[in-house]
């Protein structure tokens, strides 16, 4: 599997993501420059975390206009894999590749911490190594992770099993406390209808090595590497 990690001005988890994919999981992984029009033949495009364009205006709002996003859009339309992590998720929402938008965290503060997530849909290409209901421990680090969509869209998304991850407590229960940023229906990760584009607020690349506090992030990354929905 060949991965391409997009570098926007202000991306700051680009190297971390490349490190996890290439050095930890031994995948072929390259950087893709946002101003280019070249996907370098990758199978999976990763939009990494960070603050593209400083997150000024709105998170992800300016990044969506980067030249490379045309190719990313086409790649997605062809069924190619796209994974948006944190800021990358925000960019996917702004691009309209995923439904909804992000609001400020409910406590109006940046939040960096490990959270627990419940796997809602284990049949996607991004979760095929997980069990339904499995609880994953992965860090978040964001200011705008409070997921919002109009009720009709939410119902749609639920009906199509597009919700992949929800914030939950260690036992997998959905509680207000566990929903750290106030997301609607505790949504932490979503796929598009076709199932080839995923966005999630938690950082799997930060939970790929035991030394850093856990390896649950690998469940997501290794699912992609396996590369098929089951």
């Amino acid at each position, binding site marked *: 599997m060949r991965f391409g990690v997009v570098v926007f001005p202000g991306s700051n988890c680009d190297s971390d993501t490349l490190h996890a994919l290439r050095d930890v999981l031994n995948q072929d992984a390259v950087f893709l420059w946002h101003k280019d029009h070249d996907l370098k033949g990758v199978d999976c495009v990763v939009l990494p975390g960070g603050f593209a364009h400083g997150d000024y205006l709105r998170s992800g709002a300016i990044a969506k206009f980067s030249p490379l996003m045309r190719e990313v859009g086409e790649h997605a339309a062809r069924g190619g894999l796209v994974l948006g992590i944190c800021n990358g998720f925000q960019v996917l929402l702004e691009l309209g590749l995923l439904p909804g938008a992000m609001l400020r965290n409910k406590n*109006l503060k940046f939040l960096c911490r490990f959270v627990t997530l419940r796997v809602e849909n284990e049949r996607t290409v991004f979760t095929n190594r997980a069990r339904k209901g499995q609880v994953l421990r992965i860090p978040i680090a964001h200011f705008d992770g409070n997921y919002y969509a109009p009720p009709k869209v939410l119902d749609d998304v639920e009906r199509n099993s597009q919700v992949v991850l929800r914030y939950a407590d260690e036992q997998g229960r959905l509680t207000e406390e566990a929903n750290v940023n106030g997301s609607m229906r505790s949504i932490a990760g979503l796929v598009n209808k076709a199932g080839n584009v995923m966005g999630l607020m938690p950082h799997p690349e930060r939970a790929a090595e035991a030394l850093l506090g856990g390896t649950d992030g690998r469940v997501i990354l290794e699912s992609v590497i396996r590369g098929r929905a089951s």
Partner: protein
Amino acid sequence: MKVRILVSFKNSVLDPQGQTVKNALLTLGYGFVKDVRQGKVFELDLEGIDEAEARRLIPEIADKVLANPIIEKFSWDIMP
């Protein structure tokens, strides 16, 4: 030409920042403030474009760039 564009959350979207400001005002004794909504304002300086064109392009810019139509609405004015 100066243009002012206001972007704010749609009424259906919860505005926690506005709520926090309201609570702060309450604590400070400004109980007559019943609601607060917080939004963004953009002041643009335009050059080399006439008013008709501006009237066409401003909403385009607002819709495409400045506001996210899923959560936000906008209004604008050419400033005197």
